[in-house]
């Protein structure tokens, strides 16, 4: 199975009694529901399970590790840090695809075919970190069929939506669930960020591009 939540649980085994208390997991119910619905589609035929792959990655490196799933592909893969440039952290998987994250928000992808080329939305990142509500523009840049970057400006409204727990290697951590709703004409996406007390996003589900769709990120370590 490729569910993100048990994946984190199993990776955390030995550190905490993962998943033993249904109540404690209630905060993840939404993610579980989403991931269950989506991830039950494809099966990984060969090689290690996602859980085994994540554990192996955690054991083989002492650096930062994230578990990231393209929701439509239904597979959570381990990513390690490929680089850091100021506030932007770039994560890479074994297939040499990268996802760059700034303040919890995905600001670039590479290697997926219909990549997010850039994302300039500092006001929203700021709202997320402060766990405040507000409406600001997202500026997302994509490549067109003629190799020119073009910009989509989407107004997005960020609102805190209560407290939820997120599974980490150190057990369940209380977070504020931040919902970002972006609507423009018939286009509508809803992103979710689980932000801890110091303003750091521990887990998120974000729309990235037309070709990629939603991406689920759990910052497992670092």
């Amino acid at each position, binding site marked *: 199975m490729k569910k993100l939540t048990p994946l984190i649980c199993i990776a955390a085994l030995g550190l905490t009694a993962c998943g033993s208390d249904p109540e404690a997991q209630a905060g993840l119910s939404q993610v579980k529901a989403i991931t269950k619905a989506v991830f039950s589609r494809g099966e990984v035929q060969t090689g290690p399970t996602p859980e085994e792959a994540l554990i192996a990655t955690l054991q083989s490196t002492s650096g930062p590790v994230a578990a990231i799933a393209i929701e439509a592909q239904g597979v959570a893969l381990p990513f390690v840090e*490929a*680089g*850091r*440039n*100021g506030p*932007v952290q*770039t994560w*890479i998987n074994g*297939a*040499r*695809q*990268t996802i*760059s994250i*700034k303040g919890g928000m995905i*600001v*670039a992808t*590479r*290697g*997926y*075919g*219909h*990549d997010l*080329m*850039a*994302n*300039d939305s500092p006001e929203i990142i700021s709202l997320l970190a402060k766990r405040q509500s507000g409406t600001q523009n997202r500026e997302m*840049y*994509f*490549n*067109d*069929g*003629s*190799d*020119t*970057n*073009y*910009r*989509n*400006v*989407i107004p997005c409204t960020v609102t805190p939506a209560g407290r939820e727990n997120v599974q980490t290697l150190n057990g369940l951590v209380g977070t504020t669930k931040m919902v970002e709703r972006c609507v*423009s*004409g*018939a*286009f509508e996406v809803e992103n979710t960020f689980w932000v801890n007390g110091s303003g750091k996003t521990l887990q998120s589900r974000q729309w990235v*591009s*037309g*070709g990629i769709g939603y991406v689920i990120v759990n910052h497992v370590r670092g």
Partner: protein
Amino acid sequence: MTHSARSIMTRSIGLATLLSSTLLGTATSANDTSLSTSTYGLPGLVDLPTARSLPDATIVGTYARFDTFNRSTLSFQISDRLTGSFRYSRLEGLESDGTDYFDRSFDVHYRFADEGKYRPSMAIGLRDIIGTGVYSSEYIVATKSVTPTIEATFGLGWGRLGGTYRDFDFGNGGNVNFENLFSGNIAPFGGVSWKATDKLTAKIEYSPDEYESALNGTVLDTQTPINIGIDYAYRKGQSVSAYYLHGDKVGLKFSFDLNINEPATTSGLDPAPLSIRPRPSRTSSPQTYSTDWFVTDTTAHEDVQAQITAELAKEGIEVHAMSMAPTRVELRISNTKYGAHPQAIGRTARMMSRLMPASVEVFDITLTAHGVPSSTTTVKRSDLEALEFAPSFVIQDRAQIGETVNTRQSALRPSDDLFPRLTWNLGPFARVNIFDPDSPVRADFGVRLKASYEFSPNLVLSGSVRQKLIGNLSSSTRDSNSTLPHVRSDVNLYDEQGASALESLTLAHYSRLGTNLYGRVTAGYLESMFGGVSGEVLWKPVDSRLALGAELNYVAQRDYDQLLGFQDYDILMGHVSGYYRFDNGYHAQLDVGRYLAGDYGATISLNREFSNGWKVGFYATATDVSADDFGEGSFDKGITMTVPIQWASGGSTRKTSNIDLRSLARDGGARLSVDGRLYDEVRQTHTPQLEERWGRFWR
């Protein structure tokens, strides 16, 4: 460098835009375009045209069949309003001796009015303008949406659409029959289409064209002027149609469409580039920025060059040479992989940020064309560090693209162990000849060995031999009846005797002759029919849309067996050429000079070019050879198409597929076919091409 508003395209968000990742809106209202085509492969009802256009930059291919009629048509939306079609027909048993008749025809269709609230779309069209005239007809047509799903069409037709066949030109063909245009009977036509669902469209029409051929009696047993049809678009880009013509014959049609502006992937499937490695700030660790290494570390240049050469090789980028100064480094590279040079420049810049000593602040990245430096992009390392996650046009504003730098502070050092080198390739080949007047397809298959020995990046010995294993190219019985020297028309003899052929064996030298000047000399067996010496000079400033060139060749005709021997025909020939890349993607080339048969004249080539690498165009050559001496086709002309493999595959490659649908191989207006012509390679490393694809810099 400046970027215009073009670079920062803000598009309104629509579901289609964001969810499909495909965009490119035009100002045209959706009502003026349609992918629903007639049996002639242009927007239409069953057999009749409508006033719609294809969506801009769309190519539609159709194959329609009924009874003994087979039509294959390729249509291209040349501009928002102008559509062009090339058609190849097989009319079974229509020759007087009962054999199949093959026919080639061209149509143009121009939408001159857009649909308004009360006004219909209106278009004018010419069918079969330069062929033999089998389909010869003209029309003016109007189409109006009546409801969101129903549209009505009314038109006036001449020629076949006026209900009369014109006399066919079975002579040379190939000329526009001006005297026939809009002549003879006029008849009204019209019809209605109903888009019942997204996938299903039903059509009914009244057609004056009753297929009563003067050539071979009545073709259809016409019961009624009414045709009916139904289109089923079973998946995006493909549809099938069934239709019932004149109460007599049932037909089928298959069609596909593609939009050049919609590649398989927008950003490509290449592995992610390596990250920029930012330096610590100068204030926090000033010692990092010391330039002492340049004096103390005597092997720094060598070591760094070896490392970056090895690392960039993994990315498909060859480092030919490097110069190194304490604060500035130039890399001279050859991009062997990426269809868009900016992607190679970006990856090179990233690698330099990872491997260069911290004091090196300015990166000069020099692209090469045929091994000679052709442009230098200069970027500041601190800009790269600051803008890694900004949209590409921000770094585009900071970068400078110019003539290869002459202000080098230290000597260029060639990379070790790169040259000389031998590369070779053994593989299968297919030589395909389609749409011949005698046979729709002929082909040879076999194996080909290609090898090249590069003495240096710009001095290359290369050759190609092939062995035919199976095929029927040589089955052509068309012996040349040309009164000109047989410079091309003996192609059947070359095919017949060239089962084992030396396709080419040349030594080529490329050089920079000065600022903005490039040179080439090629000697040897230049192509399958000619060998000799070819020299070329090109003037092309880095930021110029205009280029000028001259080529002079002294060549002798090769033996039919395509081994080492020559025949006793030789000629001094060549051209002066002007090239211009218009702002809107159109490209014109004019060549004036002497052709292989000794005739004098000019060739004009017009292309629509897309920054993703596609080119679609046509060319025509007029020389002092008369139409009678030229023979079938009257003059040399053709349609060319260049399809970048990367467009279809998603993964980067510089390979393209080139299609040349041309007149028959005749002797008038024949050009030499020599590899390595300068213009196309050089200009890809220049603006505006580099700027147009700059969206790949951070890719």
